[in-house]
């Protein structure tokens, strides 16, 4: 596993990884942080594709009192919490996304993720980006549009075949 890029942010609303090397088989993106105000769920968009309907998400979620499973179509790789949110401004959360076969041009893209907010939710998710384009850009943002909390960190790793 090789570190490709890393950043610590202070209140910005998006983090963008670009010019991603195609030399690996899979990517792993690790995020640790919170919001700078309110709540929000971190998610991904690939190659600047913001088209609603191009992303499908399947979520298994525990909220501390009940377990649910939901499926949704969205404008990005987001967990579907049925209106709830993962990250908040007071508790540090974690997110890891495994983006499989990211540079292949003969298949749509599958993503597995584990998203946690220790004060509210634990989730395991499966996602699909319905494009056969190689992924060269990944944008991370909160579904609510809020900014990331200070000292939130994002690291992209390449995993070789």
């Amino acid at each position, binding site marked *: 596993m*090789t570190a490709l*890029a890393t950043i610590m942010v202070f209140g910005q609303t998006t983090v963008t990884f670009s010019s991603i090397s195609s030399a690996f088989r899979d990517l792993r993106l690790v995020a640790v942080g919170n919001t700078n105000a309110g709540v929000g769920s971190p998610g991904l968009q690939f190659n600047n594709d913001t088209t609603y309907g191009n992303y499908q998400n399947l979520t298994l979620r525990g909220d*501390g009192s009940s377990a649910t499973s939901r499926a949704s179509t969205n404008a990005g790789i987001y967990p579907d919490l049925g209106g709830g949110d993962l990250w908040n401004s007071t508790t*540090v959360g974690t997110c890891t996304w495994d983006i499989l076969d990211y540079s292949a041009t003969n298949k749509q893209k599958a993503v597995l993720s584990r998203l946690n*907010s220790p004060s509210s939710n634990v989730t395991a998710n499966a996602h699909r980006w319905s494009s056969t384009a190689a992924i060269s850009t990944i944008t991370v943002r909160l579904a609510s549009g809020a900014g990331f909390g200070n000292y939130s*960190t994002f690291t992209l790793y390449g995993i070789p075949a």
Partner: protein
Amino acid sequence: MAITKIAQVNVGAGGASSISFSSIPGIYTDLRLIVSSRISSVGTSIFQLIINGDNSTSAQSTVTLEGNGAGSIASISNSSIVYFANLGHVPGTDTGESTFNNAVIYIPNYSYWTNKAISVDTVTENNGATAYQGIYAGLRADTTAITSLTIQGQGNTLAQYSSATLYGISNTGATGATVS
């Protein structure tokens, strides 16, 4: 290479009360601990994690989601707990020969000045109708760097061939993408 094996512990014939890693260097970014465990007595025990030897400060909280393969699934929230006392199950001698729990514990930014978020996934093998699979979101509300990790099975002796491997994951020297 971003991932480095820091240490490995293998439980011998006499068993062990726990598996510990201490003096963990702060030179990495994240920690990844992979555990395979079994207790040497009858019954199913609870998989537990203690950080920095601290089992008295109510700094831990968790949200869990667990299923048992027999139709039961539950999510539980715990706050102000003195250590991570319930992160899955550890099989005992009545679950069949050579059946072990498998757990992956991921601790990002373990040496940072911030509170520590922990992600745990566990499964328990069992040659029977009931086995456990769980995902856990944990928080240690303490800004002290993590320098030790202890795995235990709720006071039960960990059986021979239980093992744990600690890896350090580093993001230094990153190259291959641009970030903004």
